[in-house]
């Protein structure tokens, strides 16, 4: 098989070929490294390549496979890791000059679990500074290089889209997995709060932080989640809850599944026509597949962004307090400004946000129970990728430029409530940029989200389209 054929494989298919020893992990890793060579000058998805260690790990995998040892679907599969997750002996830069030179002496739990599952770590993917999403990293949108690549897991989304990784790990505090998934035309899952350990991952806002997978297909996301999910006593937010087999019900379809549509908030005036059209078409597709669509109301959704913002401002500022004192000049100005702002937020507002979060969670639970919903269906983002020159890193709209803050409106509710949420490609804008739809589910019912998303994905195969990034001349 050639490089293109190998990198075009899904994790599921590659795994099957590896298990039968039709291909080797070394061939997969070499193909990925070749693809990185082809694309990286244009898209800059990787902060650091681990080519030698990846080749070494792949050789070890091939020896294991030759001896009849197969650890599971990720055995021998090349994976990228967002550069806020620690890998023992490998620098964590978190997209910042502030912690330059820091080399962790341990693996993050998510990395350790991927290694145990036999995955091969090929590199660290680019993140916005400390995953805050407020600066413009070098990563470029492979569908149109002048457009924003999404974030903060920008490198993870782009690497998966251009096939320079089979899957990747991202983090999501207000949408940072689902946002680059939607913008780059791939699948991204923010699991339930507590489902995947954050131990060894640089925190942004521990009340809202999640770790999760990005991949080309829903099934591949499920396979990665299977490897990384589960209780970890080293993460205070981890929940001791059994982990089901995520691919078991994947093909069960959506007949009779009840999906809620809330239009006042999720389809607000911020959402452009192309996105509304694509998601509304998907809604009709779901009806054709036998799902029951129910129009619902939840006016309290409007409180989600200020609640999420308050958690994020205060908790990030607290974590960075000493670094800000000693190395404030080394931060990107927009990141520093938000960290400084977080120090000035009244403590009473933070307490109000905690109380509001509990209330909003109860309202959401009531909504799901009243209508017997399996999920809410929403646009992931209000627009597809936007030209970087039209974006502002300011918290609110300024000088006619779109604030990056606008992009969290539809994603942040699931961070506030802790519900699982997945973004799946649902079409393209008139000018050829990917659009994502989001499904928000019940806590710890990622399996249901995978089943619903897989049923939709099987209809259209949007995920099979591949960007061919061209350097801007």
């Amino acid at each position, binding site marked *: 098989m050639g490089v293109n054929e190998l990198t075009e494989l899904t994790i599921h298919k590659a795994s099957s070929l590896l298990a039968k020893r039709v291909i080797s992990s070394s061939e997969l890793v070499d193909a990925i490294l070749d693809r990185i060579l082809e694309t990286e000058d244009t898209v800059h998805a990787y902060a650091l390549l681990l080519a030698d260690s990846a080749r070494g790990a792949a050789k070890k995998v091939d020896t294991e496979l030759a001896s009849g040892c197969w650890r599971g679907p990720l055995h021998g599969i090349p994976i990228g890791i967002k550069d806020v997750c620690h890998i023992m002996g490998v620098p964590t830069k978190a997209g910042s000059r502030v912690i330059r030179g820091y080399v962790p002496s341990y693996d993050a739990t998510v990395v350790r679990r991927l290694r145990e599952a036999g995955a091969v770590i090929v590199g660290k993917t680019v993140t916005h500074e400390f995953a805050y999403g407020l600066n413009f990293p070098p990563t470029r949108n492979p569908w149109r290089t002048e457009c924003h690549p999404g974030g903060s897991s920008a490198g993870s989304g782009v690497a998966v889209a251009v096939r320079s990784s089979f899957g990747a790990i991202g983090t999501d505090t207000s949408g940072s997995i689902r946002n680059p998934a939607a913008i780059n035309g791939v699948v991204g899952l923010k699991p339930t709060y507590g489902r995947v350990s954050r131990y060894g991952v640089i925190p942004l806002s521990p009340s809202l932080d999640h770790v999760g997978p990005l991949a080309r297909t829903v099934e591949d996301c499920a396979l990665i989640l299977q490897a990384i999910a589960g209780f970890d006593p080293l993460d205070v937010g981890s929940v001791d809850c059994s982990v089901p087999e995520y691919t078991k019900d994947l093909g069960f379809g959506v007949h009779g599944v009840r999906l809620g549509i809330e239009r006042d908030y999720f389809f607000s005036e911020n959402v452009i026509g192309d996105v509304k059209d694509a998601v509304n078409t998907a809604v009709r597709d779901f009806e054709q597949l036998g799902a029951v669509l129910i129009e619902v109301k939840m006016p309290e959704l409007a409180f989600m962004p200020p609640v999420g913002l*308050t958690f994020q401002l205060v908790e990030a500022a607290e974590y960075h307090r000493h670094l800000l004192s000693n190395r404030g000049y080394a931060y990107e100005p927009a990141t520093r400004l938000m960290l400084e702002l977080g120090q000035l937020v009244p403590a009473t507002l933070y307490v109000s946000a905690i109380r*509001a979060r509990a209330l909003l969670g109860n309202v959401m639970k009531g909504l799901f129970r009243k209508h017997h919903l399996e999920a809410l269906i929403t646009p992931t983002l209000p627009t597809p990728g936007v030209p970087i020159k039209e974006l502002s890193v300011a918290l609110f709209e300024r000088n006619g430029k779109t604030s990056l803050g606008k992009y969290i409106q539809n994603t942040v509710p699931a961070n506030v409530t802790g519900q699982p949420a997945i973004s799946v490609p649902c079409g393209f804008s008139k000018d050829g940029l990917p659009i994502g739809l989001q499904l928000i589910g019940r806590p710890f019912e990622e399996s249901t989200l995978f089943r619903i998303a897989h049923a939709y994905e099987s209809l259209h195969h949007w995920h099979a389209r591949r960007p061919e990034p061209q350097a801007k001349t």
Partner: protein
Amino acid sequence: MTSEEMTPSAVRLLAALAHAPILTEDLEPLAQALRDYLGSMAFLEQLDLTDSELAVWFDPRWE
């Protein structure tokens, strides 16, 4: 102090009282950001939190 009164000099004073390290060059944009933030948070006052108690989880056990 209202959000409109959040001037750069007010921010400087606030930061000093809070022992918050803030670069001088950031005072102007920070005043603007704080005005924006406090303005947006006024909206949260409309949410009735009467029946939502502060959920503090604390386990005093030693193991």
